[in-house]
């Protein structure tokens, strides 16, 4: 055992580096957000069957959009900061989709994670800010808080209270393929990328 100590150092170096490599997907993924995106891109995730309610108070479900590509984002209507940016980005997306070959094949869904406050009335009012809901853009909530949590958990969306009555959450566009699986997550301002993906999948 003349070189036992040196061997020990080598073993620790090897296993330590391996652990860090594994824990960061080859030193590329250091944050939970990028880990979530990488994981979704690698293995698409089915979404839980959850009853949703839209801005008119009518019941909808993700199955209703089967055969279409869904671009989904999360908001809460009291939000005055990032969610307004998210809204105008989806507005741009709608302008691009409508009157193009994508119309009817791609829908936009804005989902509130604050169903206790955001009822159909609040959702409708929120929709009005961006020209109202139509066949392309739906504003929905999962009426029960449990269902909302299941949805958020399935997509690894984390919502944190900001201490001022609002929330902080992952701002991103979630791309759901015609089979109802979450297949990609892109930056909320990556409109071109989201459209390209939708075109590919639709």
């Amino acid at each position: 055992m003349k070189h036992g100590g040196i061997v020990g150092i080598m073993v620790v170096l090897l296993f330590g580096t391996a652990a860090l490599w594994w824990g960061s997907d080859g030193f590329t993924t250091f944050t939970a957000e990028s880990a979530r995106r990488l994981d979704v891109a690698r293995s698409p995730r089915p979404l839980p069957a959850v009853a949703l309610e839209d801005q008119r108070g009518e019941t909808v479900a993700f199955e209703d959009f089967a055969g279409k590509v869904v671009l989904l984002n999360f908001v809460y209507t009291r939000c005055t900061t990032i969610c307004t940016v998210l809204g105008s980005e989806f507005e741009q997306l709608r302008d691009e989709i409508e009157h193009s070959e994508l119309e009817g094949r791609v829908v936009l869904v804005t989902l509130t994670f604050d169903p206790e406050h955001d009822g159909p009335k609040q959702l409708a009012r929120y929709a009005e800010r961006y020209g109202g809901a139509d066949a392309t853009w739906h504003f929905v909530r999962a009426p029960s808080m449990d269902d909302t949590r299941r949805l958020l958990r399935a997509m690894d969306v984390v919502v944190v209270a900001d201490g001022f009555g609002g929330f902080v959450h992952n701002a991103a566009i979630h791309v759901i393929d015609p089979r109802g699986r979450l297949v990609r997550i892109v930056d909320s301002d990556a409109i071109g990328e989201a459209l390209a993906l939708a075109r590919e999948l639709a």
Partner: protein
Amino acid sequence: MLSYRSLVAAGLLLIAAVPPLAWWWEASLVRHMLMQIPMLVLAGFLLGTLVAPSPDLGVREERAGGIAAVLLATFCVTFWMIPRWLDAAVASHRVDAIKIMTLVLLAGLPLAWGWPRLGPVARGFVWVQAISMAIVLGLLYLTFPNRLCNSYLVNEQAILGIAMLGIAGFLGLAGAVPVLFGANNGSPAPRHPGARVDP
């Protein structure tokens, strides 16, 4: 055997690792990184001082073993400094349990065994690396425009960044003051095997 140290270690574990107190620490990024994790490592360290035999520095193997042990602790702490694993520990109790166990057993314990076995150069090396890693993390958290952790707010990130730079400064001063102004008188005779001064 109930010694003073084992009591402190048990107390630290109780405060840092037992829910719901553990969750309270983890609810804030600064508490999580700068209080809970150090407490866990310290608890492991104190437990380690109870079980580790005192070093025999005449044996070279002991020194190499010390380096391996401190390296292990470094890897373990580094792993839990990766933002996604901080997030994962908050999101999953199972990951959190693994975090607590590894920080105690794979970071604190080996540190207690390894640190007394390190020579002054190795200690200095670890110290210097700790300073630059604190600067790196400080800059990372201070300047990163987006959220690094999904579980925490971005303003807490900036606080953590400043705190990390503060820690770097503290480590620097704590290292520099004794090195520059130590009260030791030194050894009177210049003896060295490599090169002896001829009379």
